[in-house]
């Protein structure tokens, strides 16, 4: 029997919680009129927002106060989410899981009492990875546990083998930062100094973490007092009724939306490279969503077994999916998402990369596996929505960046004081293209709506570095599509006023992981480059700030994905990139006017316009060039097993997305067809890819933007295009490992095979 206990295996609460009877739970209800309801709902929402603002003001880590890598919440007495703030959204489930575990495991010993707060950073209980530490405070009315207030905050360093606590070299949790199951950090209003010091002792920057931890405690205190006052004014039963009705409303909203989606099953898979430092393997993550009636069922079957440091626990898996789902489907609930969660049922395969068992390492999840799963979730939800009512199909938001491109450096200030510099400039971000249009350039990340990148001046104030440039990435093959992905950024810097620094964490991908939906190009691979013995200082003296990394003299270091700490002397220079987000639909189907507009603003070069989009000056020349490209695709592709049949022009098509459409018979799906070529690809119950012409190439040969060197994992990655056998336009594409079968990723129930 599988025991989801939060000890040997991730914690998954049962339908009913086992809470000792000694803990009195408030469950009262009352009649609440529509006006009083709104007054209380508004107060609760504001209490949670003010909770977030307090954290932001009092915290000292840029990653908290600027990046918004934290999340306050209000939850019911049994830990169901009432309000989530506009901060990091994959913390969606973290507090709920941790509180439910506390109720089941701490109510008897040491007990849950007024004025207490519990802290935990145990991923097997509820947090995505160890730096994300939860502080949860019960709110009592009389002797009854009325509700909970909690926050999660990313701390700059909580120990482990790597500065900043993303331990990419860990092969199990014993090399990770310590994971503390929930402990009573505050007892009846008093901070337990012994436990606080135990926690701080693990950190390389204890002062910093101390300030942030105290900010978390203070902010909780304020929120607890406000909710207690609200219950005092309107009555606990009334306030609780409002909480429950907020939950019910979220459930009702998602149920209505689900009614616009046919029953069916949608899958997507993504790859990661390097399970730990020194590894060059490629690993598979897969998510399948099944929609049946008014419920969603989510599993991770097809995901590789847990290994190295690229794992997450159930908290991470469910948190990532829920973040992508609520942003796509129910963003209008503005954080009142608890009711939505009631309709999502997870059935994870344990012992896997996305639902690991103890003692798998998980600490780098904050920049790798969480983003991989958010991207994966967004892709699979997008596929599901493509089959929904037309007005809902536009809710797809596409695959997010599959990693959080970041850079953590460490060293000592000229004064000798050590520092850990967490550079979260990737908050600049970029949004994926969607069926609605281009992704937003520098649009941040949908899963952290208010996240903000630092100013260069803030970075240089805090840490001894000088930045040569931070500029927009050009649009290119990376992120191209009928609608293109948003543009990201690239930055470069050198150590400044110190003899050197260490690059503790960096992201260098040998291939892009997230492919664009329905034939869109993949986004960028994130890169980190390092040169030693450069001429930067000499060029400063000559009146120049170098602007082209390739033109900087010096020896280029060979950088690996999840490589070891890199030492950088005073004459070193580094460059790293965020990413252009994935495109949507075939780049050759992009409106030439949009391509020209990008050339005009300087976002796209004329060279890339021709190479990637087949757009040259003159409408006729563009048509001719594109026709030649499409013909060349078909000439190089493996045709479908049977010659294509087309449907007559008078047969109505229901467009799903890009070039993919369906015909219907008697209101039921009949067959997959292409939009422009009207080629029948497969009957509705089969895989539409079976009827496509298939063009498969090494990914690195598709465009210089995807180049990598032999020997790295990405060199083996392949790009497979599923083409309309009539027109050559892409219907879909996949990044695959050699020999991977086409994923049967869209199955609509009720369609005969």
């Amino acid at each position: 029997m599988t025991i989801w206990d939060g000890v040997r295996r991730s914690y998954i609460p049962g339908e009913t919680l086992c809470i000792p009877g000694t803990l009195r739970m408030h469950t009262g209800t009352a009649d609440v009129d529509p006006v009083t309801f709104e007054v209380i709902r508004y107060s609760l929402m504001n209490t949670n927002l003010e909770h977030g603002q307090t954290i932001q003001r009092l915290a000292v880590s840029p990653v908290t106060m600027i990046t918004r890598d934290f999340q306050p919440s209000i939850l019911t007495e049994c830990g169901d989410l009432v309000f989530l703030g506009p901060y990091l959204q994959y913390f969606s489930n973290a507090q709920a899981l941790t509180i439910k575990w506390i109720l089941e495991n701490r109510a008897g010993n040491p007990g849950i009492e007024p004025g207490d707060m519990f802290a935990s950073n145990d991923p097997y209980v509820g947090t995505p990875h160890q730096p994300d530490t939860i502080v949860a405070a019960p709110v009592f009315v009389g002797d009854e546990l009325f509700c909970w207030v909690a926050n999660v905050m990313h701390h700059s360093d909580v120990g482990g083998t790597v500065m900043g606590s993303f331990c990419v070299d860990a092969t199990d949790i014993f090399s990770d930062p310590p994971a503390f199951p929930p402990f009573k950090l505050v007892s009846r209003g008093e901070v337990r100094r012994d436990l606080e010091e135990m926690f701080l002792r693990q950190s390389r920057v204890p002062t910093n973490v101390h300030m942030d931890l105290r900010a978390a405690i203070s902010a909780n205190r304020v929120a607890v007092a406000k909710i207690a006052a609200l219950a005092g004014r309107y009555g606990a039963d009334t306030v609780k009724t409002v909480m429950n009705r907020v939950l019910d409303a979220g459930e009702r909203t998602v149920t209505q939306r689900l009614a616009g989606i046919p029953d069916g099953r949608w899958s997507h898979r993504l790859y990661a490279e390097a399970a730990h430092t020194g590894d060059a393997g490629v690993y598979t993550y897969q998510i399948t969503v099944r929609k049946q009636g008014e419920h969603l069922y989510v599993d991770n079957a097809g995901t590789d077994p847990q290994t190295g440091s690229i794992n997450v626990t159930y908290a991470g898996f469910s948190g990532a999916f829920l973040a992508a789902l609520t942003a796509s489907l129910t963003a209008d609930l503005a954080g009142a998402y608890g009711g939505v969660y009631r309709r999502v049922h997870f059935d994870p395969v344990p012992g896997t990369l996305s639902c690991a068992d103890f003692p798998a390492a998980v600490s780098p999840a904050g920049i790798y596996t969480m983003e991989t799963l958010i991207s994966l979730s967004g892709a699979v939800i997008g596929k599901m929505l493509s089959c929904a009512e037309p007005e809902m199909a536009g809710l797809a938001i596409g695959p997010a960046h599959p990693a959080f491109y970041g850079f953590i450096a460490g060293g000592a200030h000229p004064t000798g004081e050590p520092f850990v510099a967490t550079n979260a400039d990737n908050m600049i971000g970029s949004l994926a293209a969607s069926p609605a249009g281009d992704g937003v350039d520098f649009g941040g990340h949908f899963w952290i709506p208010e996240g903000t990148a630092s100013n260069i001046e803030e970075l240089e104030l805090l840490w001894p570095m000088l930045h040569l440039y931070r500029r927009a990435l050009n649009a290119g093959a990376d992120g191209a599509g009928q609608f293109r992905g948003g543009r990201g950024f690239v930055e470069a810097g050198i150590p400044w006023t110190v003899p050197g620094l260490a690059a503790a964490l960096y992201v260098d991908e040998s291939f892009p992981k997230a492919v664009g939906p329905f034939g869109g190009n993949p986004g960028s691979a994130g890169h980190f480059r390092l040169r030693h013995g450069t001429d930067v200082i000499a060029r400063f003296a000559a009146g120049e700030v170098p602007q082209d990394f390739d033109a900087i003299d010096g020896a280029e270091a060979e950088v690996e994905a999840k490589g070891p700490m890199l030492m950088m002397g005073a004459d070193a220079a580094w460059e790293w990139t965020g990413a252009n987000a994935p495109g949507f639909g075939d780049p050759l189907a992009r409106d030439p006017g949009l391509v020209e507009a990008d050339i005009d603003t300087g976002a796209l070069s004329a060279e890339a316009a021709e190479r990637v989009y087949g757009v040259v000056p003159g409408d006729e020349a563009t048509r001719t060039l594109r026709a030649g490209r499409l013909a060349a695709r078909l000439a190089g592709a493996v045709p479908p097993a049977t010659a294509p049949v087309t449907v007559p022009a008078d047969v109505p098509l229901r467009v799903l997305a890009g070039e993919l459409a369906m015909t219907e018979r008697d209101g039921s799906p009949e067959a997959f067809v292409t939009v422009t070529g009207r080629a029948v690809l497969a009957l509705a119950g089969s895989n539409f890819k079976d009827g496509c012409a298939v063009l498969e190439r090494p990914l690195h040969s598709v465009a210089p933007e995807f180049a990598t060197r032999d020997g790295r994992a990405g060199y083996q990655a392949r790009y497979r295009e599923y083409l309309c056998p009539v027109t050559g336009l892409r219907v879909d594409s996949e990044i695959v490992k050699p020999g991977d079968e086409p994923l049967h990723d869209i199955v609509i129930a009720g369609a005969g095979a």
Partner: protein
Amino acid sequence: MYYVGVDIGGTFTDCVLVDRQGNHRSAKVLSTKDDPVTGVLAGLGQLAETAGVDLPTLLERTERFGHGTTIGTNAVLERRGARVGLVATAGHGDALLMMRGAGRAAGRTIESVFRVHGTGLPAPLIVPGAVAEVQERVDASGTVVVELDTAAAAEQITRMIWEYDLDSVAIALLWSFANPAHENALAQAIPDAFVSVSSQVSPRLGEYERTVATVLNGYVGPATSGYLSELASRLATPLLVMQSNGGVLPAAAATPLGTLDSGPAGGLIGVATLAGAYGHDQVVGTDMGGTSFDLGLVIDGKPVVAEVNVIDQYTYRLPHLDVRSVACGGGSIAWFDEATGGLRVGPASAGSEPGPACYGRGGTEPTVTDADVVLGLIRAETFLDGRMPLDRAAAVAAVGRLADRAGLTVAETAAGILRINNMQAATVIRQQTLERGLDPRDFVLYAFGGAGPVHAFGYAAESGVREVVIPLGNGASTLSAYGIASGDVVLYHELERSLLAPFDGAALATAVTEVRDAALAGLAAAGVPGEPVVEIDALMRYREQLMHSLEIPVSPPADGASLLAGFDKEYVRRYGEGGTALFEAVEVFALRARVSVPAGIPLPRPEPAGSAGSALAGHAPAGPERTDVYWPGRGWARTGVYRGAPAGTITGPALVELAHTTVAVPHGASLSAGPLGELRLKEF
């Protein structure tokens, strides 16, 4: 001799005149958007008529002519500003474009910030592509790392001006606030363009916000300057221009950026001026209009100042009066949320077009104003002095449709709309006071704007405030113009300077002197006569707490120990004893000097006994008439109606109808005219 204040708003241009005795008169005319000067002249003409003089005489007798303009704000919102190009440090010219990744969400309401769909970056402020990245670099200490080749850079910029046909150039280099030499050299070298320099416009840490400030200044600069010189020439009188910091400056010295958002500042400075006259130290100023509820605080007699401002998703830093705006005004639309079964109000607003259902201009959604009409708090036939009769039946029908869905009576629904709207307004009041560690019960609430006095009893009670003042009585609807007339000349200077506790007394004194002298020099350059008052604040925080800032007053000679004690005291007041973090060093990260020359506007003239308010707009108190009003929480009651401010004290329930608003006096409350013509509502 007169003090004149003119405030151009979206709909009305308000003019106020105050004479040496403190008598004041006001005029309200329609704004003329395409040619604002015409509207101003019409308003002044009307004002002259009220004062019994002709326009030239009025202008001749005007000693101080204060003016608030929305030219700049409109230019930004409608993207009708100058053709601006940006000069940036090599490698950093895209900071404006990338907006720190926060451009999509900046300044958006909480209801929309979770939403990805349909969101994007705002339209650019510079001509796309018009960026000259010049070779130069300064580091965090202000040390020059790469020398500027001024001639080469100037040539590069000149080429950009020509290529992009620019009329405005914004120079914003990295770390220029720490060492402005390169910016200054470039500013000198650029020919024939409106030049804005970041180390002068917004000399603060953070290149993105500093660049936005500089570009905005360049974007609105040419139009603002052009308009002000035209107005000055047609009036033949020197102008003092209202700034968002609540002060005025001679037109030639005013920074265009400072005129952005100066409208709400006028209201708050009017509140602060009158608070001094009425003897109030702690005031919540509330302006409820058709679409928004604006709130600002006066603490210890001074209006509260903020730094960060957002216009159309662009964030910048400039000391400005901290006026918060939320979408709960007379036009806020009430609706029924089927999912929760709750009644909601806003954030959508019917605005003034089509406006509330009762306006009869095609609006069908129930609004807060419709609820007022249903309840009888606003009488349809006497709205705006009877100049705009309202359609009560339309209001009842609109609210009635909502009532059917909510399962409440029409009156209950209308009362519910008010309760929710009041709750939203009170939440901002509570947030603004409690966040600063202040108790709303220690504040007096000033209510103005068309929808302020009618709702004040509700949101004041909800927020815990004990007394409401309707400043200037009948003149409450032109309070911004009054503020503009009464505004002191104010100039701010800021200096980024990191000093760690325990403070080195000499370094602190040097910094204080430096910021003080720079501010005084600025005032001298502006050519303002009079004895300046200098106030200096240290901006402090625990080191590395980058998002936090406490302003601690510095009284020369600067004393490090008392500064630190002041910080600790303020920190404890806001966050409690547990909040202080003795394990991290306290730092001063910037100093801010405010120099001002008091306007010396005469106190509002005390009204002769027995005729309080009558001088304000010529309304003799008539009645009381009687009408039926549904008072939230009590139900229908016969209610006395007074036209114009009453003499003596009246007790509720009562309505007092003023020229542009109504004061609602609930059961048990009392309303009396104060000695300076203001109305005071108590015990509500």
